[in-house]
């Protein structure tokens, strides 16, 4: 009887220490799978916004994803009223400006260039001023707003911070936070 209670104690003591060790090991394993600091540090891209030309789509790269940068021309800003969003049924004019990033006097569309449906890369039609996703026929206007389903929402806007004439992707500035709060992007 005495022996077995001693054995029981040994078992519990060993089990307790081993259990703590196992939890610590799991924690270490989880952390080992995290993105490395070097990967995270490379998660910022700085764009010089003065280099872009009106109505000319430039594809940048941020965290391995394509980033669409489209500087809006005067005509593009004014023609917004004609666009109609299929999903909301409202004119997109009210939503349009809120999706653009204003730097100096210029307006830019800056979005992640992956269709929000299943992640294909839409192509830009310069004359029609719209994006078409070849995978399942989704369409977006020149601000990245959906005009034809199946995409569930407009092109996502990456976290950004305006810094003078440059745009830092990967950092959350006040303008981005406002967009997030108002539900313009996820």
């Amino acid at each position: 009887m005495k022996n077995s209670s001693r054995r029981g104690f040994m078992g519990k003591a060993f089990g307790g220490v081993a259990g703590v060790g196992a939890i610590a090991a799991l924690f270490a394993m989880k952390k080992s799978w995290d993105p490395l600091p070097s990967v995270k540090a490379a998660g910022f891209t700085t764009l010089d916004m003065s280099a872009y030309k009106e109505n000319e789509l430039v594809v940048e790269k941020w965290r391995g994803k394509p980033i669409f940068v489209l500087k809006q021309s005067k005509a593009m800003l004014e023609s917004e009223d004609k666009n109609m969003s299929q999903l909301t049924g409202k004119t997109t004019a009210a939503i349009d400006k809120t999706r653009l990033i204003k730097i100096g006097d210029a307006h830019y569309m800056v979005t992640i260039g992956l269709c929000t449906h299943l992640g294909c890369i839409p192509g830009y039609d310069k004359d029609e001023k719209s994006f078409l996703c070849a995978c399942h026929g989704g369409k977006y206007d020149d601000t990245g707003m959906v005009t034809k389903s199946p995409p569930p929402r407009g092109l996502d806007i990456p976290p950004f911070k305006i810094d003078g004439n440059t745009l830092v992707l990967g950092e959350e500035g006040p303008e981005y936070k406002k967009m997030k709060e108002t539900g313009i992007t996820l």
Partner: protein
Amino acid sequence: MAHFTKATSIKDWLNQRLAIEKVEKVMASEYWIPKNINFLWAMGMVLVITFVLLLVSGIFLLMYYQPNVDLAFDSVNYTIMREVDFGWLWRHVHGVAASVVFLIIYIHMFTAIYYGSYKKGREMIWISGMLLFVAFSAEAFSGYMLPWGQMSYWAGMVITNLFSGGSLHADGLVEWIRGDYVPAQAFLNRFFMLHVLLIPVAIMGLIGLHFGALRIPHVNNQDGEEIDFDEESKKYLAGDKAGSKVIRFANDFMSKDMLVVAIYLVFFFYLVFFHYDFAMDPVNFDPADGLKTPTHIYPEWYFLWSYEILRPFSTNIGLMAFAFAQVIFMALPFLDRSPNTVPASRRGLFKYWFWAMLIDMIILTAMGKVPPIEPFGTIGFYAALTFIGLWIALPIITMFEKKA
């Protein structure tokens, strides 16, 4: 302490130390198999042989493959395919076997469903078998990443995206799995580790469990008859081989097994030498490019049915339907409420359930391959609903089944 005597032969020497005669009896010559079976009972051995082919070809590929995003594509398509003598052979054996192994797994599974080999004590055989299916699926997916072509990259992107859980937007979990924001070096390295070490070890352990689960209930037979294996084996050993309902696993059953394996291997090597291209997607011969999506992303044929259950629904419902499809087969022994262990043909409504399920999965597979245009989208949608409906109907129709 055991008493050892001077050995009279090498066999005797080993026998005293390892009991090899006893082991041989337990594992082979006195492991009893029913006589009343057909060629479908050889699929287990066919799978073992295919697994060995995968292992051996994999070992040779491993000696030249480079798990590096800049080198991986060329190490497969240049080094292994052009420089290494017979490198093409290992690659084509590996690719064809990875595809064919799923065909045999599906045959093996549907044989078990047809003959009711998942109930009355055989539940653990079924469950360990389904765990093997999950492990083989993970093994196939991780291996598909390694050549680092366009399909590798985008399949990796899409499948890891599933873990964001639709509207849950668990992007942190997705990034944790990838070790990066997109599939990149960390992703390739960890999937390489999973493919060559962790999952194969798990598979070998599960194969052990699968075989172990067979020992007590024994192999089923064509009529689901409950055989007294002790009684029948005694009859056999006493010399009444014709009257006994069982035969030895080795060499009797094995010789039949190997005949099926031989026919299978003719078919297998025909594919390896003349039609390996079916297992090699042409899109994957373009190197991975994160800034260019292939126009049509689809999985290998053996995942198409579950992919098609995901696709026709909106994001969240699709994910739930997909998760349901992944786990539901595991619950088969408990959803089948009938005590009858006989072939489906003698089980009333279950007969129709079996064929409906088989045909529905073939339709789902076909619809998963074609682009999502009409009428295929609608057919896929109803086939997915049918799949879910059949599983809901299973406990009800089996509950009212008459005792056979």
